[in-house]
């Protein structure tokens, strides 16, 4: 019998487990990365000054997005977890909507509206400001969700103690400090995600590394050059993120005191509820409703709802399937990774470093790696390498770092004494994992699954490159028709998509709130 004490002891199994899981995640991108590394010695990394300039722009944009996302997402997450306010589920649905809409659409919405409003608005948004607005709109919900989840891990006693010490101001300040580490990591992730997204840069005319890499892929069809550029970008990201990792990892989680079994309860506080509603309202209005308006203005001239509904009915199953499949795979990878890393700071740092590196790679890297692997594999492997499962797998591999960070935090917050008691009573490892660990980690798994599902839905490149012929998702359908489809059709598709998404998210949040997740 394997004692559950192994969960709290160092061991080579941890290193093996972390290595194996990270290897699985990195494997599809490995061939292209390897070709790039091999070619580094003999060729130029940059292929011109443009890439150097683009990298500087991208790093600046990523940093600013991380800061803005943290500054807005952290207080939002904390306040929404602590205080009641009306219409919570709808607000959450709207606030998390940006995660599942490709950034291209937000950028086009802004650009369209700006063009109609006044030239100076277009000029103001042109370049860096437009990119910052759009990317931050996507980064804020990620940080908000992680701050929210981290706040819920507190005990009621801790919040009450802070309340007694100095009222709500002390509560918010203490809680914000408590959730600072995982939220910082989330902000880092949101910044890194911008590095692999060429959308807003293309629309607003701001050269980014992602645009340059896209050029290498789509204009020069030079995989190896694209690979070199990606390797360079990833190395820079890791170097810049090292201080964040060294600061945050040791502070990632505080072991909960086991007598802290009373959960945080939201309270009624009129003034703060008003602040939350107003602030969230401003974010939803500026970040979501305004660009949505820009996307849907063509509806004034007519609609194409029948065609849009038709498209939705053909693609809804795939859209949901890819999203939930990706979330499930990411959870099945991310949580075991967290278990293997345990409370070991070095292993946690390695996990997070690799996670950042993976997220900074453009999605095409992993996807094209899988395409090449599938082409070299025998036909029977198509079940795994050329099916809808493949799309889920690629998306899950891309975004599993999000679940890993959540899992690292959640595991770090469990008490080591629980394992000690179990080992004294002869509870086997399997029984302990099944009866205690899994149920305790399930809420975190749920949040992670939802986050990954949202992010995966917005990933066009992976779906384009891997979907079985005829099995596209709705966001991909929107982007494939929008080149020369009537504006009314594109607007109708966007409206149908957004409405369905808001409806689904509202249901999810209502259920989650009901179970107090």
């Amino acid at each position, binding site marked *: *019998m394997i*004692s559950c*004490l192994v969960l709290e002891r160092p061991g080579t199994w941890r290193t093996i487990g972390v290595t194996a899981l990270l290897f699985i995640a990195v494997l599809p991108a490995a061939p292209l990365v390897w070709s790039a590394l091999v070619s580094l010695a003999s060729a130029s990394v940059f292929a011109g000054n443009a890439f150097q300039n683009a990298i500087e722009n991208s790093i600046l944009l990523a940093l600013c997005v991380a800061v803005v996302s943290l500054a807005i997402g952290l207080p939002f997450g904390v306040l929404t977890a602590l205080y009641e306010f009306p219409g919570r589920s709808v607000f959450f649905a709207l606030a998390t909507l940006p995660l599942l809409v490709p950034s291209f659409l937000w950028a086009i919405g802004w650009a369209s509206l700006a063009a109609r409003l006044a030239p100076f608005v277009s000029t103001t948004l042109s370049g860096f400001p437009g990119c910052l607005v759009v990317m931050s709109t996507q980064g804020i919900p990620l940080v908000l969700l992680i701050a929210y989840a981290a706040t819920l891990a507190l005990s009621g006693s801790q919040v009450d103690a802070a309340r007694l010490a100095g009222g709500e101001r002390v509560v918010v300040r203490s809680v914000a400090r408590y959730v600072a580490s995982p939220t910082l990591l989330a902000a880092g992730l949101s910044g890194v995600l911008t590095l692999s997204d060429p959308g807003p840069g293309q629309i607003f005319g701001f050269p980014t590394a992602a645009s340059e890499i896209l050029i290498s892929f789509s204009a020069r069809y030079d995989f190896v050059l694209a690979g070199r550029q990606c390797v360079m970008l990833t190395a820079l990201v890791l170097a810049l993120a090292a201080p964040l990792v060294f600061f945050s990892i040791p502070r990632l989680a505080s072991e909960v*005191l*086991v*007598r802290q*079994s*009373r*959960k945080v309860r939201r309270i009624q506080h009129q003034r703060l509820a008003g602040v939350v509603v107003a602030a969230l309202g401003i974010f939803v209005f500026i970040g979501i409703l305004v660009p949505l308006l820009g996307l849907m203005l063509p509806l004034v001239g007519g609609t194409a709802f029948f065609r849009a509904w038709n498209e939705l009915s053909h693609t809804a199953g795939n859209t949901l399937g890819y999203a939930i499949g990706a979330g499930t795979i990411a959870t099945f990878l991310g949580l075991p990774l967290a278990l293997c890393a345990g409370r070991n700071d070095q292993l946690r740092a390695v996990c997070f470093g690799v996670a950042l590196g993976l997220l900074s790679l453009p999605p095409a890297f992993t996807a094209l790696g899988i395409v090449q692997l599938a082409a070299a594999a025998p036909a029977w492997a198509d079940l795994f390498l050329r099916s809808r499962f493949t799309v889920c797998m690629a998306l899950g591999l891309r975004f599993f770092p999000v679940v890993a960070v959540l899992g690292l935090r959640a595991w770090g917050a469990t*008490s080591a*004494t*629980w394992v*000690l*008691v*179990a*080992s*004294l*009573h*002869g*509870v*086997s490892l399997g*029984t302990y994992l099944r*009866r*205690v660990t899994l*149920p*305790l980690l399930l809420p975190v798994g749920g949040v992670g699954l939802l986050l990954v599902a949202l992010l995966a839905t917005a990933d066009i490149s992976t779906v384009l490159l891997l979907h079985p012929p005829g099995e596209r998702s709705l966001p991909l359908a929107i982007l494939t028709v929008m080149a020369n489809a009537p504006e009314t059709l594109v607007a109708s598709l966007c409206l149908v998509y957004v409405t369905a998404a808001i409806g689904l998210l509202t249901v999810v949040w209502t259920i989650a709130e009901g179970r107090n997740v």
Partner: protein
Amino acid sequence: MSVSQCAFRSVSKLYDKHVVLDEVSFTLPAGEHTAILGLSGCGKSTVLRLLAGLEAPSAGQVLFDGKSVSEPHRVLKPPHLREVAMVFQDLALWPNLSVIDNVLLGLSGKGLIKKEAEKRAREALALCTIESLAERKPGAISGGQQQRVALARALAVQPSFLLLDEPFAGLDLITKTTLLEEIATLASEGKITVVLVTHDPTEATTLCRSALVLENGHVEETGTWEELRSNPRSEMLRVFCSRLG
């Protein structure tokens, strides 16, 4: 009961070069109820963890009936085979499981059939007078009730050794006294060897007949209350005895 005696032989324990226990030796006869006293951080909880096999000594041996069960950096007999049950300072109830499931999970390593395990679990809950709380989760019961659950979980496995690490902190006097008397009765009836770590003189003298005083990682003195009261050597024990009145 299968173990008649437990002994520490020159046991030392270091954490990152910090010496917590320094060549500690003592013997615990079977069925004896012993309190371990000492200042905070003197190694009391470490003694319990070494006894339970949750950690290995840095030097010396832990012996059960003269046979080595732990030696330097090695635990020869794993915790679940030592017939030890422990109530931790923080109780360590699994928050996602109900009261009865906490006890049942504690019995899962015993190889009992489901019916037998259920019966034993309910008997343990009844012994601790918390049968009515069986379906509640730890978060929904009071501190005192949580301590009874931890105790029930420990007693359900019918241990030879019951290790109690400051389990009564924060309880009101009446509840504490009642629990102590119940444990004393159950332990005597079951011939369980009890080791209690506490700062409270009342707890120590109600439950235990003898004590062991640790100071700076050494055993300063040991013996029955009568022996210790008649000639306390350490400052710690002098203050302790003065509070006994």
